[in-house]
């Protein structure tokens, strides 16, 4: 039977069920409180809170994480999506545990960024924009990260790796595989 949408019954019933909301441990809640306390307007804390939520939810904003943010900030779910989709560091889809972000902009490019990307593609078996099958690695090309004087460079999570060579890339990948290297997410 087809459903009738009328002004009095505008949405299918299941859409009215609030999405499941993420729950965080007290120390994460305290961290969130510290950010909220900085601003006269709660919504200002949206980006710092998104970073925390994506860290806690496996690297991206999943629907329960988004529901949590909307509730915590007193805004609509769409407001969260609106902001999340604007910023390149906010992930709306899962990313690998180690996210290699190679700078592709001019100073890095002329000093060999292309070779660094190639080496990563060769060793990881993924192209920029991809995540490998077991979810260990993602590879991205990103814009200037303020390391032009120490080019070429990349970030893994939030950590900087500068003056890169293909040998250094191999070393880093080995250390990721053995779990020795931090994934730079915090």
């Amino acid at each position, binding site marked *: 039977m087809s459903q009738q949408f009328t002004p009095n019954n505008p949405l299918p019933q299941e859409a009215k069920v609030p999405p499941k909301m993420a729950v965080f441990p007290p120390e994460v809640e305290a961290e969130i409180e510290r950010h909220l306390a900085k601003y006269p307007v709660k919504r200002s804390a949206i*980006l710092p809170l998104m970073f925390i939520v994506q860290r806690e939810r496996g690297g991206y904003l999943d629907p329960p994480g988004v529901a949590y943010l909307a509730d915590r900030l007193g*805004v609509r779910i769409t407001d969260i999506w609106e902001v999340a989709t*604007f910023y390149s560091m906010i992930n709306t889809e899962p990313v690998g545990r180690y996210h290699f972000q190679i700078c592709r902009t001019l100073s890095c490019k*002329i000093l060999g*960024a292309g070779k660094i990307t190639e080496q990563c593609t060769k060793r990881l078996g993924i192209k920029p924009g991809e995540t490998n099958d077991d979810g260990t690695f993602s590879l991205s090309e990103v*814009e200037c990260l*303020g390391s032009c*004087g120490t080019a070429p460079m990349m970030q893994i999570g939030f950590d900087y790796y500068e003056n890169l060579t293909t040998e250094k890339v191999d070393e880093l990948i080995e250390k990721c595989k053995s779990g020795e290297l931090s994934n730079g997410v915090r």
Partner: protein
Amino acid sequence: MFIGAIGCEPLQLRRVSLERSRTLDVYRRNGGYEALRKVLDGMSPDDVIGEVKKSALRGRGGAGFPTGMKWSFVPKDSPKARYVVCNADESEPGTFKDRYLMERDPHLLIEGMLIAGYALGARVNYIYTRGEYRYLIEIMDEALEEARTAGLLGDRVLGTDFNCEIYTHTGAGAYICGEETALLNSLEGLRGHPRMKPPFPAVAGLYGCPTVVNNVETLTAVPDIIKMGGDAYKALGTEKSGGTKLWSVSGHVARPGVYELPMGYDDMEKFIMEDCQGITNGRQLKAVIPGGSSVYIMPAEDIIGRDVRMDYEGLVAAGSMVGSGGFIVLDDTVDVFESTKNLTEFYKHESCGWCTPCREGTDWLVKVFKRIESGGGRPDDAQLLLDIVDNIEGKSFCPLGDAAAWPIQSAIKKFPEDFRRHISNGASGDGGKEGLPTA
């Protein structure tokens, strides 16, 4: 990488090479917080603004607006709160000076912001740092906590009745958030689209309140201006460009780095060939992009033997701009068609999508570049690029559109041969897939 001053005593870089330079202890033992003390010991807010005006300090974020004048636009009688917001978004390709200032001397920024807060009546202030600089936010947070514990921040600064708080804030990967009104939207928790001006932030900025947005390098110049006096600071540079300036040097030079030069440093050729120790691998200089990716490219002929003075007027006279001071050196292996394509891709990626000329124009430009590169060049393509650019420049909602246009205009004008070659044979200059040579 080199960090230091050439042609003057290091001012803003005075402490960066000291051991534990980021600690309060080292900062204080090297003249730190003396300017704040001087201000609180008897200067009025107007005295402070007066010194900054005298110093001829111009905004170091890229636009070069006189800082003292900007500060004096903040209405004195407004019943609203006032804010100082430090722009630490540093995303202009080729620019990395703010990073080292914050990494090595975070208390200098705190002191500069406290003095600005005092002058402008701002009690709560924010440092908007690009999201990728998370480690700098951590360094700043640590320094802020140190300052708070020492009574330099928060209630009753240095025991006076001046209250001032500073908080860090994070961006999340968007070049446009360096534009001051987009930054304020972002800080309010919105998408980082620019706002209509006027009203300018000095009148209606953060949360609709009077707000001064200043670059890290601008604010870190303030303590020395107070200590030595505006006139003495100005005398380090030229009449119209006071003080010293940091240049982020990258690309094909033997010694890249952050160089502090007096404004009016003479001259650019000497700077590249001697101070930066020349071009790597014995190659020839082909071009310089002196002020971050958004400024006009300068061919070697406009530099060698031309006594280009390194300050606002000198660079304009030489056909470019100081911009953010992101000094990108290109040797003769670089194909300017390819380098311009690389930067155009940057602007396309970073266009915030708010207005049509920039959103559609940058996308179209990249498509034309790609078509040419893949062998589909047409005789009138250079003109097509210039026409698209003409429909972006001056017709976009914010200066990002102009910033995308200028590199293309100047590249086609100064390096027509590089474009002609691609357009006529469609093959990339070095035959490689990457297009740009890889070292």
